[in-house]
């Protein structure tokens, strides 16, 4: 009896091991598909753009001739935009998350708001462009300026930041919050000294990932009127501006083949900035995690 059972078990075990192997191969293939396309993308971008990429390219304003054109205005414009977006969206986003997680009464209405913030994170970016056009460009009368673009992009990534910050705040263990309240700390003291320090890695990681989504966005910026060709850097919040994806989009739209290479070089710069931002996110996370 026992021996038979063991044989059965062995047989079934063999079946399971085989299934495991097949699935491993399938999952591996799926990964490979993604990797192949990523490599193709890098290959295309690099071969097309590398020839035009130089220090001059990074430091030149747009020009009528491909050889003289550069991404300087776009690069600096994108950096300025991201500074505005980061400040506005992180402050509002983290405050919202703290309110929803720590202060708001736990009722149906709060839950309704929470779900809808998650839904907002999925709304197409062009819709936020229209919102920015209505409010910031026309109603607030900012016109086609840096601040209008920055605020629009801030709204765009606000839901993502709120959700990331909410998750970070929620994952702070209840035990250490209780420890703080148990010593007579007020809610705000507990938030400032216990909850936020513990939530910061999660908040920052979420914020940087959201920012790297924003830095590549084109559609909303076109709608709120980012300029395609400007020869100065924005000098104030109410100045005209451009951004890297706008420049790249503009160059790819031109008929002559050389402009495709100029655009390719722009994509390399954009990817490099993205890579730097994501590395910072990883660094921050590792640094804080080691401290915990």
């Amino acid at each position, binding site marked *: 009896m026992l021996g038979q059972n063991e044989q059965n078990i062995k047989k079934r075990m063999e079946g399971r091991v085989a299934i495991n192997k097949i699935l491993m191969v399938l999952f591996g293939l799926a990964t490979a598909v993604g990797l192949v396309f990523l490599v193709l993308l890098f290959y295309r971008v690099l071969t097309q753009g590398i020839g035009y990429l130089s220090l001059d390219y990074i430091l030149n304003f747009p020009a009528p001739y491909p050889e003289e054109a550069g991404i300087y205005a776009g690069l600096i414009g994108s950096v300025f935009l991201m500074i505005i977006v980061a400040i506005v969206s992180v402050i509002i986003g983290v405050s919202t998350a703290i309110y929803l997680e720590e202060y708001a009464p736990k009722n149906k209405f709060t839950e309704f708001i929470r779900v809808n913030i998650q839904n907002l994170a999925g709304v197409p970016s062009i819709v936020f462009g229209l919102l920015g056009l209505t409010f910031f460009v026309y109603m607030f009368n900012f016109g086609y300026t840096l601040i209008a673009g920055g605020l629009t992009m801030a709204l765009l990534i606000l839901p993502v930041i709120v959700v990331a910050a909410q998750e970070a705040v929620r994952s702070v*263990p209840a035990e250490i919050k209780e420890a703080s309240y148990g010593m*007579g700390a007020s809610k705000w003291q507990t938030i400032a000294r216990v909850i936020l320090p513990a939530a910061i890695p999660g908040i920052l990681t979420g914020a940087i990932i959201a920012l790297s989504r924003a830095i590549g966005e084109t559609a909303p910026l076109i709608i709120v009127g980012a300029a395609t060709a400007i020869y100065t850097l924005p000098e104030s919040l109410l100045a005209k501006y451009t951004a890297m994806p706008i420049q790249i989009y503009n160059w790819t739209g031109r008929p002559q083949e050389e402009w495709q290479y100029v655009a390719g070089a722009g994509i390399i710069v954009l990817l490099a900035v993205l890579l730097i931002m994501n590395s910072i996110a990883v660094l921050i996370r590792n640094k804080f995690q080691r401290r915990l």
Partner: protein
Amino acid sequence: MNGVMEEKTNKKVNQGSAKPEVNKEGIKKEKANNIIEVSDLNLWYGSDQALYEVSMDVPEKQVTAIIGPSGCGKSTFLKTLNRMVEMVPIVKTSGSIKYRDQEIFSNKYKEEYLRTKVGMVFQKPNPFPKSVYDNVAYGPRIHGIKKKEVLDQIVEKSLKGAAIWDELKDRLNENAYGLSGGQQQRVCIARALAVEPDVILMDEPTSALDPISTAKVEELVQELKEKYSIIIVTHNMQQAARISDKTAFFLNGELIEFADTDDLFQNPHDKRTEDYITGRFG
């Protein structure tokens, strides 16, 4: 920091005419033995009642143990004493709890103030993910102490009070998460002491600890009662018998019996107490 408030109340008493003052003092002296007086306390989680008409006077500078089967409301009762239970939004209470003759449920009474006087040590050690020093200095800091020398003194005194100074004096800047469970729990006790409370509530403080750490904490409780009133929830009846002066037995949200520990264990008055301590149920 809290001395200020007490001084104020004292002054008020002194302002009165001579005769009532003597009277009041007289009353105070009589009551001086009880630091917390609970009367007719009921508590509900939503529509589920967890405490029924609990009345109990907690003696000052003694160890009061709370025993009873799981789910009988020991933790709930303990957390009511510093109003931590109200962090559960559905909680409703009725009745009265007086800390040093002041009604803690009154609107005027600040729960933050209460918690500086009635500190708490939790079942699972719960240090902050900070250094030992920052853990112990947390309480004084939130109450406004900034001077490094003062904080240094408080940290040393509190760690000594929790009998862990010698073990940790060279590791003050290490993260408390790197300590053993027993060490963490004593750091948590030191952290509670640093606020200079009168009363320390302990909810099964040794249930997550090994026997040696448990013995250390028990010994510590004995030392602490010189200066503090201690209320300790425990599942371990030997522990209650070893370390407490008075013992309260809870069952299904009711206080069944509350007496001197020796009395309660040697000749319990209630059949249910007897059944419980002789291990016939629970």
